């Protein structure tokens, strides 16, 4: 059973990673910086519980806040450029963060062993969960409580005027400006919220794996962050969740029996999924059908 709990943990954390890119994608911005915010949240939260002995929840919150603050600071210059330039700028940022942690040493003595990040060796022994006797099931439920909360908040954002404004900017920047929408403010706010979500996700990631290093936050992770909402569709937060389940649950774990062939099939299936469902796994039509099934056609 622990295997499935572990898988559910991965899916939960990757959902947060994908959602951090989702909100920015609503404004039409493609960012490869999400792995960077994820790394910052992971290191900050990990250092707080390991080095200062903070409880987990405030450590996660601070990880999220630092992720948000960095995202906001990066967003101002980065979001002034668009399209491919933004992709390159955010890629550079993400790699910069990774290389920073590659060179980052900050260890203190704890009894007869030293704890804390140690450059290329990584940051080992983030043992908050085992030290406090959490079972895999409890960790999984904790992660999902946070994922559910974040999804609920984003779902609500999506239906608020703010969500409509994000989508308006994503659709037509010129028209959005000319009805008085401040493009920079809207994009930076989305980037900041995305940074917070990635930071929280990173903090959770650091604690369930207990060991992080710079390669855990490479360009592949940034690509996954972007791929989830794109494969899942931007109609709602559930698209991202569906895509993570599809990729992590089915493509990576479900096809493990194929051995080396899995990686070949992996790419092919993603391309196939995008061709069969060009508006994402969960598109507006699926949502409408679900709403009718569960909401009893309240709006009809």
């Amino acid at each position, binding site marked *: 059973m622990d295997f499935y709990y572990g898988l559910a943990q991965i899916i939960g954390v990757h959902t947060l990673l994908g959602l951090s890119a989702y909100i920015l994608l609503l404004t039409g911005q493609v960012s490869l910086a999400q792995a960077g915010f994820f790394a910052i949240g992971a290191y900050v939260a990990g250092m707080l519980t390991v080095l200062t002995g903070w409880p987990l929840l405030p450590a996660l919150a601070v990880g999220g806040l630092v992720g948000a603050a960095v995202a906001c600071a990066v967003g101002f210059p980065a979001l002034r450029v668009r399209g491919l330039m933004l992709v390159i700028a955010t890629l550079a940022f993400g790699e910069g963060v990774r290389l920073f942690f590659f060179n980052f040493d900050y260890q203190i003595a704890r009894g007869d062993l030293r704890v804390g990040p140690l450059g290329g060796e990584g940051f080992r022994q983030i043992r908050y969960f085992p030290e406090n006797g959490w079972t895999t099931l409890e960790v999984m439920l904790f992660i999902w409580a946070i994922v559910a909360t974040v999804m609920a908040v984003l779902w609500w954002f999506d239906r608020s005027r703010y969500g409509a404004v994000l989508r308006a900017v994503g659709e037509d920047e010129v028209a959005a400006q*000319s*009805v*008085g929408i401040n493009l920079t403010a809207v994009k930076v706010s989305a980037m900041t919220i995305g940074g917070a979500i990635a930071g929280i996700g990173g903090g959770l990631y650091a604690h369930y794996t207990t060991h992080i290093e710079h390669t855990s936050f490479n360009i592949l992770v940034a690509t996954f962050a972007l791929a989830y909402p794109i494969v899942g569709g931007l109609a709602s937060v559930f698209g991202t969740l569906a895509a993570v389940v599809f990729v992590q649950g089915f493509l990576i774990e479900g096809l493990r029996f194929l051995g080396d062939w899995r990686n070949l099939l992996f790419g092919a299936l993603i391309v196939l999924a995008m061709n069969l469902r060009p508006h994402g796994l969960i598109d507006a039509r699926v949502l409408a059908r679900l709403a009718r099934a569960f909401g009893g056609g309240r709006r009809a």
Partner: protein
Amino acid sequence: MLELHQVSRHFGGVRAVDALSLAVGEGEIVGLIGPNGSGKSTTVNLVSGLFPLTSGRILFRGQDLASVPVHRRLGLGIARTFQNIRLFGHLTVWQNLWVAQNSPEDRARRGFLARWLGGSAGVRREIGELLEFAGLAPKQDELAANLAFGEQRRLELARALATRPKLLLLDEPAAGMNSEEIGQLRERILKLRGRGVTILLVEHVMELVMGVTDRIAVLNFGQKIAEGTPAAIQADPAVRKAYLGGEATS
């Protein structure tokens, strides 16, 4: 209200707008006509701030607009529609109006959170009125992309009005409309004048321009070749030659 002083905009060697001076008074409806490529839409883009000026000055209520970014011009009370309709197609009709409520009045009246997250009774009533004005009330939950062409034009007008403009720039609002729709558009423009909205109307359709404007300026190759009342413009030989051509008798 709006003053253009010797305004020019060059694209490479092309003088899209060349030393144009024009004044629009409070409450006036001024028409801007001219053949294709004469600089009408460029003028609208210069006033709304999408292009910077090559030279000259644009004043709105005495304030120089040069350093005012696009989204802030709306805050001053300048709104516009686009020649090639630019709606938010994947938002509903209602949402298209919702996101446009960015006027200083709306900012002052509602708290930050209420403005960004909420849809209060006041907001719903105002949007309801705009939908009524544009004749789109039954379509409020449709996606804007699914509307018929004429409905999209009406929605764009309503969206511009949702920003509570003092000066409305209409860029060929009648393009592609049939004569009945043009009649309705004229009614709407006259209603807006009744509410004190100043309008700069860029239009090809003479039926509309001659019917609603107080004054008309004629552009040709970026320069103003005539300005006067609709009757005077129709009689002006230079205008007939440059623009009305064979249609001059209509």
